[in-house]
């Protein structure tokens, strides 16, 4: 067998301007990837194509799919999965894990503060506008003490590796972050297709997420409850994350309920079972704040449970995450994360934030105006990527226009350095070969009372289009199994 021209890596082209996770600074394949590289390289392209098809049909048959409307027909698609795993060594992982916990802890203290004494606002460490302009800030939560003192039990942190080789956090997702079920599915699919490769590595398991989730949720059970009854609440089977909801309920061994399965009587929550009402103590909710309780929030919500909020306020039920937690994952809060960590924990951030220049501060404004070609300019209050200007893609005229806009209303703008995501070898169906694709990493953290957990692994998301930086599954992103190596 002529190894070179029949192996799948033979046509891998490296763009040296990109940070390729497979190679070290000397241009050699990194030690931790050596074995993997050899094992995969031993496959012929035909072999590999077959494995790839098998993995796809495994997802399809398991019904791990999402639905898209194509013209008038509804089509089921799988989330594209790449068989070549990403490896993170023990040392790097330690940093990620500590950093993720630090952020979760700081955000929890921040949430407690802004729903109680609001010290951080009064001392001007973060501006009042951060909460006063946020629709996710729920006044109903003022003075409410969540069981166990935890607001953001479950969070997902989006991390990238920049071309300086360092990790940066892009977002802290603490509303209802999804994706953890795919971490486990990816691992299963990879094992089914290429079990042999696991013999050569000592990788942490990812299947312990659900047991830890249940365990930590039970640490924040309502007062006076001995063995709590936990449920997962879903908007229903037409929700795009329904598979995940059912997966979590199943692996925790708890009921998966919809709003209509629950009711509140005398400030306690019950579910309707075939044997009559059964009290519910802990609810892992996968529905948004505004839909939780039609008596307190959106009156037209058919997804929620009337009276749930007052039962919560009485301390008779735990909601994870707590209502009103979403205010802390607003984009504007992110830019203050280093200040928030410093303020509550008196620590320096373990994971980098992308540095944010606030144009409202004169010295930072000056820097922004001078370095606009190497910055991304973002309006503070626009969501969904609107109004963003990327400095190195602007013409001279456009740069002048943007400068003028910033000078007119500096408070409305922030600027960040242009980040570049690292790349990872990814098998591309169209060319039947490996190519460089941008990746990020979503980690999953659980916070309980005096206890925390970070899943040793995560969802490596891949932007499948060449040169694209958008890894979201809604925009054609795929994912990879992610191995965290034991020390």
């Amino acid at each position, binding site marked *: 067998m002529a190894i070179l021209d029949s192996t799948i890596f033979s046509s891998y082209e490296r763009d040296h301007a990109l940070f390729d996770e497979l190679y070290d600074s000397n241009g050699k394949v990194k030690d931790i990837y050596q074995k993997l590289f050899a094992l995969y390289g031993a496959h012929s392209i035909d072999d590999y194509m077959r494995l790839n098809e098998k993995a796809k049909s495994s997802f399809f048959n398991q019904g791990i799919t999402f639905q898209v409307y194509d013209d008038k027909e509804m089509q089921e698609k799988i989330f594209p999965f790449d068989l070549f795993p990403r490896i993170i060594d023990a040392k790097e992982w330690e940093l990620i894990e500590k950093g993720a916990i630090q952020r979760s802890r700081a955000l929890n203290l921040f949430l407690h503060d802004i729903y109680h004494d609001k010290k951080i606002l009064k001392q001007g460490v973060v501006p009042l506008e951060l909460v006063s302009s946020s629709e996710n800030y729920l006044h109903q939560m003022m003075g409410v003490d969540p069981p166990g003192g935890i607001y953001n039990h479950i969070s997902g942190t989006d991390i990238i590796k920049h071309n300086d080789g360092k990790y940066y956090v892009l977002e802290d997702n603490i509303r209802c972050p999804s994706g953890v079920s795919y971490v486990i599915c990816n691992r299963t699919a990879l094992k089914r297709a290429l079990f042999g490769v696991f013999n050569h590595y000592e990788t942490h398991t990812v299947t312990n997420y659900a047991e830890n989730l249940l365990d930590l949720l039970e640490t924040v059970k309502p007062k006076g409850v001995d063995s709590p009854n936990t449920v997962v609440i879903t908007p229903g089977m037409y929700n795009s994350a329904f598979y995940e909801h059912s997966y979590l309920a199943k692996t925790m061994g708890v009921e998966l309920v919809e709003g209509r399965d629950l009711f509140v*009587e005398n400030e306690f929550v019950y579910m309707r079972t075939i044997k009559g009402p059964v009290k519910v103590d802990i609810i892992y909710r996968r529905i948004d704040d505004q839909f939780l309780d*039609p008596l307190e929030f959106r009156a037209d919500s058919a997804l929620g449970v009337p009276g749930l909020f*007052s039962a919560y306020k009485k301390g008779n039920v735990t909601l994870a995450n707590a209502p009103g937690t979403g205010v802390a994952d607003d984009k504007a809060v992110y830019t203050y994360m280093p200040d928030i960590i410093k303020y509550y924990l008196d620590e320096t951030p373990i994971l980098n934030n992308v540095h944010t220049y606030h144009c409202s501060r004169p010295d930072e404004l000056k820097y922004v105006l001078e370095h606009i070609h190497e910055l991304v300019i973002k309006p503070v209050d626009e969501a969904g990527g609107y109004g963003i200007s990327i400095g190195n893609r602007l013409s001279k005229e456009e740069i002048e226009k943007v400068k003028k806009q910033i000078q007119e209303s500096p408070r409305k703008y922030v600027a960040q350095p242009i980040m570049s995501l690292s790349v990872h070898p990814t098998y591309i169906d169209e060319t039947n070969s490996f190519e460089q694709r941008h990746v990020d990493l979503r980690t999953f953290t659980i916070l309980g009372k005096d206890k925390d957990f970070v899943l040793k692994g995560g969802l490596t998301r891949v932007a499948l289009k060449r040169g694209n930086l958008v890894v979201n599954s809604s925009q054609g992103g795929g994912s990879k199994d992610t191995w965290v190596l034991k020390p």
Partner: protein
Amino acid sequence: MSLEYKIVYCAENQYEFPVKEARWQFLICPHQDENQELHSFSFTNSMNFPYEISTNAYGFKTLRILARTKFKNIEFKANFTLNKKILNPFNFELATDPFEELNRYHDLHFKVDHEPFLRKTPLTTLLDEHSNFFEYNKGETVFENLQLLNKWVFEKIFYTPGVTHVNTTLDYIVENRHGVCQDFAHLFSAIARQYGIPCRYVSGYLHQGNGYFGDSQMHAWTEAYLMDVGWVGFDPTNNILASDNHIKVAHGKDYADCAPIKGIILSKGENTTSHSVQVHGQQQQQ
């Protein structure tokens, strides 16, 4: 001196098809505070469903009913008796330096503490072109300005039931100049908040003995925060200060926090609702 009030609240709901399950929440109980004292209340319905007492997110008492037997019509009736102190709403002194007074409203601690009642909500948002109609006079005290605002709102809108609903925007109301007490209260709050004066929406009952506007429904007015004084009630629907004719039930950022009745009904088809409120007052010596 005080007044004794008897309040009767009635609501009737009719449904085209039988209702399988329903849940209502009523926010109609007079609030207990230093100026008003609830003596007794009763709450009944024609289906004899039991009720529970709860509190809403702002701590006001709610009455809740869970219905699990089928029905097509239901009537609710609540009776309240209470005592209300007769007070002069004017019993405070005006600030001496209007500039210094207004400055105190811009203090960060103050703004943080009163954030909920300084915020723009969907019901208290005005387009820029509309928000400049009323001009704040910095040479006069906050109270004087609020009184001018009270009058301005009173003159701006013609009290007309039935032309607006709970989701009508303020801009529409300002352009068309017709509305009911909710709309008066929202407009007042929107403008006061814009000048940095905390303002809350109040829902309650109005004793109409003096020919005040307010229909035989629940009434709405506002409370604005005055430095060194506290919350003072303004009723822009009638261009008066809230007084012993105003019986407060609840306050919030806007109507959405204070809706008197909320219902979640499992049924199809149309439904009709009617409400009525009667307030009887009589003076008492103490």
